[in-house]
């Protein structure tokens, strides 16, 4: 039982998780250093290997105007079209579209292409959502994909063209 899900792009390319991951791994590196694995951020070392990475909570209201301490977690592939392409293949091969719909247009999981984000739309926030999962059903993919795979998905999602924010849906003729 299921409806208008998923894909149809990159047919025949995304033949397996491994192939897609290999693509991601082989994608040209950005000039910035590769992202540290979570638990090993570039500016601070969390107390344990299982702790979340230090991230910026820019989409949140900080009590007292004081953001939590922690260094930045930045996307080493930001804006890289080759990495975005690899991410799009991963998105299909791993059935991300099984929940988030064709090109992230939304299914049981939220729309990822409307420019609106439940847990923040900065690269590091999307990374955290995918790597560690989120409440209400988002699985943690960090273990299966590793940081490189997750960054490729982030880069892909950020490459999607964001339509105009049409807050109004009207059935009346103007």
């Amino acid at each position, binding site marked *: 039982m299921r409806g208008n899900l*998923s894909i149809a792009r990159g047919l025949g390319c995304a033949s397996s998780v491994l192939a897609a991951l290999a693509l991601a791994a082989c994608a040209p590196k950005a000039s910035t250093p590769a992202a540290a694995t979570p638990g090993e951020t570039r500016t601070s070392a969390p107390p344990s290997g299982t702790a979340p990475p230090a991230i910026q909570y820019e989409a949140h209201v900080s009590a007292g105007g004081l953001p939590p301490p922690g260094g930045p977690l930045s996307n080493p592939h930001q804006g890289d079209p080759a990495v975005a392409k690899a991410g799009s293949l991963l998105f299909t*091969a791993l059935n991300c579209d*099984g929940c988030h719909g064709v090109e992230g247009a939304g299914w*049981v999981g939220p729309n990822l292409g409307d420019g609106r984000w439940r847990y923040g739309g900065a690269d590091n926030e999307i990374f955290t959502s995918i790597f560690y999962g989120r409440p209400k059903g988002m699985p943690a993919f960090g273990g299966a994909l590793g940081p490189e795979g997750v960054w490729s998905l982030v880069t892909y999602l950020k490459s999607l063209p964001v339509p105009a924010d049409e807050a109004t849906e009207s059935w009346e003729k103007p």
Partner: protein
Amino acid sequence: MPDAHRLLMPTPVLAVAYLACAAAIVSAPVAAAAATPTATAATEDGQWRMPSKDYAATRYSGLATINAGNATSLHPVWTFSTGVLGGHEGQPLVVGDTMYVVTPWPNVLYAFDLGKEGYPLRWKYRPDVSANAIGISCCDTVNRGAFYAEGKVIYNLLDGHTVAVDARSGRELWKTQVADLASGETVTMAPLVVKDRVIVGASGGEFGIYGWLKGLDLATGRVVWTARNIGPDAAMLAAPGTFKPPYDGGTDVGATSWANDSWQTGGAPVWGWTSYDPGVDLIYYGTGNPSPYNAEQRLGDNKWSSSVLARRPEDGSLVWAYQFTPHDNWDYDATGAMILADLTIAGKLTKALVHFDKNGFAYTLDRETGRVLSATPFSGMNWAKSVDLATGRPVIDPTKQTGASKGNVKGICPSLEGGVSPSSPAAYSPRTHLFYTSTNNLCMDYAAVHASRLKGTPFVSANSPYFAGPGGYLGTFMAWDAVTGKKVWENKEPFPNWSGALVTGGDVAFYGTLDGWFKSVDARTGKVLSRFKVGSGVVGNPITYRGPDGKQYVAVYAGFGGDWALLSGDTRSDDPADLRAPADFQKDIARHTSQGGIIWIFGL
């Protein structure tokens, strides 16, 4: 009378009704339209104690106060917001003077006192149900209802537990983990209680589960047996000499019909309806689609996915199985209701099983052997031309076969929402000898690609946009003669029709629509007798009961959902971070409805 037999028939009154019904069917020729009422108001106990009203899954009540002459004055007498937004499939139970309602996740159980003004709650039970289950449920966070037995209200939680709650106090009696979220399993079906067994299965045809049915002990919740729906004979509880499929035999056919051991992640979930024939002591249930949607990753028939299976309730042993859609390429789950009726076919009284399948055929089977007696298209369909009664196999159109190597296959009917959704169970009236069901008039394109599997995440990989079938409407509610294989009447609806059916001894049928109308119609003609806009689209199943005041009432849930294709995204108002355009195939559904669960009760 041993305990087991007493449990089989929850009350003497019900037992009498069942026997009276059976006797009347035996004596009444099918052609006689004005046959003697079978379950009359006198033999009808006026309750609704199990999901489909009776073990035969007829959704027929003998109550007759509301009839085709007075139903025009039906009006709402009470409503209650469940406070939950998920699709409200399933139906309430009415036992004595209490109504029991299970909500979609988080699966709250409400007990209303129908004997007091305003029907206040006696209690509510709020189990701790994991929110992770939301992401493991393919299509919505639905629940298809509870079963009452031996003073217990028994139902399933989305996160893979079965619970028994004391019907008087609301206290939890036992709670058993039956399914594993981490493997992609959730539980949405209503349980079936037969003798001292609680029968449950798991959803997860979109997550590559290894589908199963379990029998729990009614007193303790202990899992007594687990039967796989696919795989080797031993795992399927298919013993030589006991398992006698009518067509496709062979040792371990549940494994050998899957290339490369693909049965191990082959789906075949159980999320629909179950029925039981005490005469032959068999439970009947359908299995869902094989995984993944790219059929080239699981070459072979993929038995026993998209099939009906007949098992002994006591030990789960498999007695027969029949596959409606071999090597299912189109997500044609067979989890819809298996309705048991004794029909006069070619002059012979036949113990039949009638099933409206997602694949567009209405089947009549011999429920003792599983042999197909007839299979007739009831909705627009083109993937097959007919069913060969000698072999039981569909005669397929090869141009409608799908798979990753075939690219985008266009114009397949029905869509994978089915000629009817299995979520929308049909009803059968022993008075009119007609079956009543919702239908969908949708077709699809289907583009499969190779799917990779990560345990606990979707295993799908197909894009299948829908479009309207011929006629410009998207659904119907219809009356069907299973003996002649003919539609008797139908009411066209602008949107896919997704509610279950109810039919009564007053010859009134009831259904709801996706755009939020609840309707009563003349069971013999389909003429609309009353309608009311109930606040949200109806995907639940109406019931009827006799209240403590002696009057007949009809209850139904409003609460749009049940499949996210229907939800169309733009019908939601609960998430500012999710802004979607309307679905191509029903652009204006959001003009007429939005989410939100409401219980409605109607009376004269």
